[in-house]
């Protein structure tokens, strides 16, 4: 069979396989083992299907690949328009890569309402992929909102501690933010008569949108608030530690690994893509916020007694790098930003999985409860070390590539930004390595820790892909960057040159 013939429908397949699987689980009787196995098979199937995308990515002139454009609702003019470029391609693969691992990691930690758990997880996966593949603003909003309920329920139903508080806070923060985006989307529709990303973009570029000059700042901000909440950018980050700490492990992995990237992806695709002038005009203060996020997140991480909270705040810091890279508007910065999204997804996803494994054994995240774990759990310690090193950005690991590119981009934009951001790298090695030392080295301080079982086969299976991906992405980043670079070049940087030429032409 010619695999190319799949190309027009492959995006729909990848997007909807998980949800279809979720609906099928509804029909399976409540035998937990069957449900888990089925969810695993479905998520692996989605992953395999998504591998079609990088393999068959043709280098042609179209900006978006694998496009499908059908009319969903004739009036208002809403299309089922999907397509990906080098930016969204890897985010889709990241989502499908992390979900099977989430299924594996939840195998024993979820023991009641198992059926609902896996249905929610798979529906969440569909919504996440949909966010990255839709090219119709309406469709995008549709999927964006559709991630809300499954995630909130995962936190609220399967979390621990103040889970309800965390779930409601997460829901309301995101909901309120995205209402502003909806208003902005509707304004664009009212003026252009289309929800199609490309149509709106070209209408804005050709200056045929009435009243755009006055509204552009507000539109930019409308989108920006929705995305900044999700990233989360300082000072809108307060929902994140709560949501992370109380969420079940799989929820944390997807939250850190993919959901936060919805925000940075949105900034890049919509804020920068639709409003290039406003994005550049507002870049200084956004970069300052990103810098505050980098340093503040790192400093707060440093003093966290709770392992999961530490990782959560480290996300604030890492995502600051992404925003910094995007708004530096340099080739290196943008490439780096997209790469950090991926490497953070892998590394922090891994850290949350590891934290979840220890929680399953000891039912606590307190760092003080551990110490000397390397003796009873050597394999666990090894995996943890690899992931920590990936996260702190050790050369030859994936974290390094992205952060390096972002930093060099930031230097080009303004040296002081680069210098300040570089301290973030130092801080991150401080808090992560210090935590590693406190948890794994020294003598075993609590007797109970001596009896902890090391990783079993299932857990090793779940963690190995993370470790391998972290290493491969660090050694051969070009595999990823070769798809990312043309996309950001044409996408985020090209408008500037066009803009400049238009201004000169006047």
């Amino acid at each position, binding site marked *: 069979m010619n695999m190319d013939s799949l190309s027009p429908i492959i995006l729909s397949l990848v997007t909807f396989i998980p949800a279809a699987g979720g609906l099928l689980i509804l029909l399976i009787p409540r035998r937990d083992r069957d449900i888990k196995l089925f969810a695993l098979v479905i998520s692996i199937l989605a992953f395999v299907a998504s591998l079609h995308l990088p393999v068959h990515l043709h280098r042609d002139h179209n900006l978006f690949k694998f496009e499908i454009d059908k009319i*969903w*609702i*004739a*009036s*208002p003019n809403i299309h089922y328009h999907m397509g990906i470029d080098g930016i969204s391609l890897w985010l889709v693969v990241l989502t499908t890569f992390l979900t099977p691992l989430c299924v594996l990691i939840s195998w024993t930690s979820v023991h009641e*309402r198992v059926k*609902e758990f896996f249905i929610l997880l798979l529906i969440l996966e569909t919504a996440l992929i949909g966010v990255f593949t839709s090219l119709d603003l309406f469709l995008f*909003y*549709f*999927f964006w*909102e*559709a991630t*809300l*309920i499954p995630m*909130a*329920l995962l936190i*609220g*139903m399967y979390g621990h501690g103040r*889970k*309800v508080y965390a*779930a*409601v806070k997460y*829901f*309301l923060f995101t*909901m*309120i933010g995205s*209402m*502003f985006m*909806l*208003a902005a989307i*509707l*304004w664009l*529709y*009212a003026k252009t008569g289309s929800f199609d990303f490309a149509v709106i973009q070209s209408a804005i570029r050709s200056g045929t949108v009435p009243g755009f000059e006055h509204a552009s700042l507000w539109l930019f901000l409308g989108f920006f608030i929705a995305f900044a909440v999700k990233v989360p950018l300082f000072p809108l980050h307060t929902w994140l530690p709560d949501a992370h700490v109380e969420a079940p492990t799989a929820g944390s992995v997807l939250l850190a690994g993919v959901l936060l990237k919805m925000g940075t992806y949105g900034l890049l695709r919509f804020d920068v893509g639709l409003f290039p002038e406003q994005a550049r005009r507002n870049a200084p203060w956004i970069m300052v916020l990103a810098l505050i996020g980098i340093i503040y997140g790192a400093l707060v991480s440093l003093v966290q007694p709770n392992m999961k909270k530490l990782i959560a705040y480290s996300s604030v810091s890492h995502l600051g790098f992404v925003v910094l890279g995007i708004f530096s508007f340099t080739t290196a910065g943008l490439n780096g930003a997209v790469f950090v999204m991926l490497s953070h997804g892998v590394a922090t996803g891994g850290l949350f999985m590891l934290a979840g494994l220890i929680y399953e054994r000891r039912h606590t995240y307190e760092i003080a409860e551990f110490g000397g774990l390397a003796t009873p759990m050597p394999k666990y310690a090894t995996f943890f070390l690899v992931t920590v090193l990936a996260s702190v950005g050790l050369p030859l690991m994936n974290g390094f590539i992205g952060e390096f590119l972002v930093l060099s981009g930031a230097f080009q934009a303004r040296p002081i930004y680069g210098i300040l951001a570089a301290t973030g790298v130092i801080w991150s090695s401080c808090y992560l390595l210090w935590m590693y030392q406190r948890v794994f080295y020294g003598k075993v301080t609590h007797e109970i820790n001596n009896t902890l079982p090391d990783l079993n086969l299932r857990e090793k299976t779940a963690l190995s892909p993370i470790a391998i991906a972290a290493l491969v992405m660090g050694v051969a980043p070009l595999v990823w960057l070769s798809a990312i670079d043309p996309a950001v070049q044409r996408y985020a940087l090209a408008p500037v040159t066009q803009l400049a030429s238009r201004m000169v032409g006047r």
Partner: protein
Amino acid sequence: MTIVAAFAHSLPALLAQAQPFQAPPLADYMRILPELVLSLFGMLIMIVDPLLDQENSHQSLGTLAFIGTLAALASTFWMAQYPGTAFSNMVRVEGFSVFFHFLVIAIAAVAILSSFEYLKVQRIRAGEYYGLILLGTVGMCLMSSAIELVLIFIALEISSISTYVLAGFRRRDGASSESSLKYFLLGSFATAFFLYGVALMFGATGSTSIDTISQVLRSGNVPVLAYVATALMFVGLGFKVASAPFHVWTPDVYEGAPAPVVGLMSTGPKAAAFAVLLRVMFEANAPGRFWLIWVSAALTMTLGNVGALVQSNVKRLLAYSSIAHAGYLLTAFAAQPELGTSAAMFYTAAYAAMNVGAFAVISHFANAGEKYVALEDYAGLGRRSPVLAATLTFFLMSLIGIPITGGFFAKFYVLSAALKSNLVGLTLILVLNSAVAAYYYLRIIVMMYMREPRGVVPVTRIPAAAGLAIAVCVLATLYLGVVPGRVLDYAAQSARDLISARTVPAVSSASLAPKP
């Protein structure tokens, strides 16, 4: 002075109209076929009722009533084949009225289905109950097709009086009587306002026919009296749709009335009243409506949402939520006529589907004597009754406005109509309000899924009838949320017919004056 002058002016026209009596043609009866069918079934039920055994009549009478609504639905399709005016320009069949006929009768059908079990447990006499629902529905149907203010008033009264009585059907409960009496007193007061408005409108324009009023008001030179008339009619209709500041009755009445009746009266009469409001505001081109509606819409949604935030009784909470939704709907009335009408029509349909559904679930759950209507009673419902909880969650998601539900598209169309009409301020108020609203709907979802069950709240099996009612609502909400195209096209087309036909200045109504 003006009244007398206007009356004197229109007197020749009125006299010219007075012709010797002629039996209306058969097509005229076709144009009120659903009303006839419903009245017939309503009377039939009341005749059959004394013949049946009191204890076992619930099932058979309910089935009869349900068949009545099905027959009425079928006759609506028949009626749709006969577009045009009937009975000397009193009633008009067009896309708009067919839409609301269908909606109102479907609401009644679902309300009847969800009452089966309720009546049995509450030991309510079924004959009167179902008879009143069917007769009330006649009034609602007539409200949507009447194009004559006096007939509208009569239809309004038919529907209102039935609902006043229905609200008091839990006779053993003081709250229900309170609810009924409050509704009756305030409702009559409000209807009086409406009637006063009609009288003044007649004074201002010399006619009670909407076509003529529209013609006069469009011809420029709008008398001050017409503004007053608009305001007064808005007071009357504002009460019926529970818009601020005439909304205060809603929570008390909803709390006391039987749950299936609340499902009916929070949607059916409301939809009909919105239909009248659309006719009066847009079709008749009421003067000075913009700020009236703007202020009322902003107030309604804000007060509704703020009120809902602090409720601990689910029925009261949904009462406040329905006030808020009336506010969202009113936003569409401030938009351009055509956009606003179609958005409002779609919203009424989506709102009806989700709200009737939510109340069907609640009335099943509240069950024995409506004991379990506190928010705490919903704790752990997700575990004990997954299906019931999942459907209620779905309806609540629709009320929040999450995608793949009808509520999402409804809000979406209203927002986009408002933005196209450059109502940025009102849009922002709506956006902020729906963000606030998410919180209290979420409280119910949180209760059901994230709290442990407290005490013993019995969950009985869902009986077939209620199950069917809930399933219909879920499907309707889903249909409107996934493929809203057809309904929206229909709404847009009928809005075009309703508005555009009349914005052309020289078009006059057929019987009063010959076409130029």
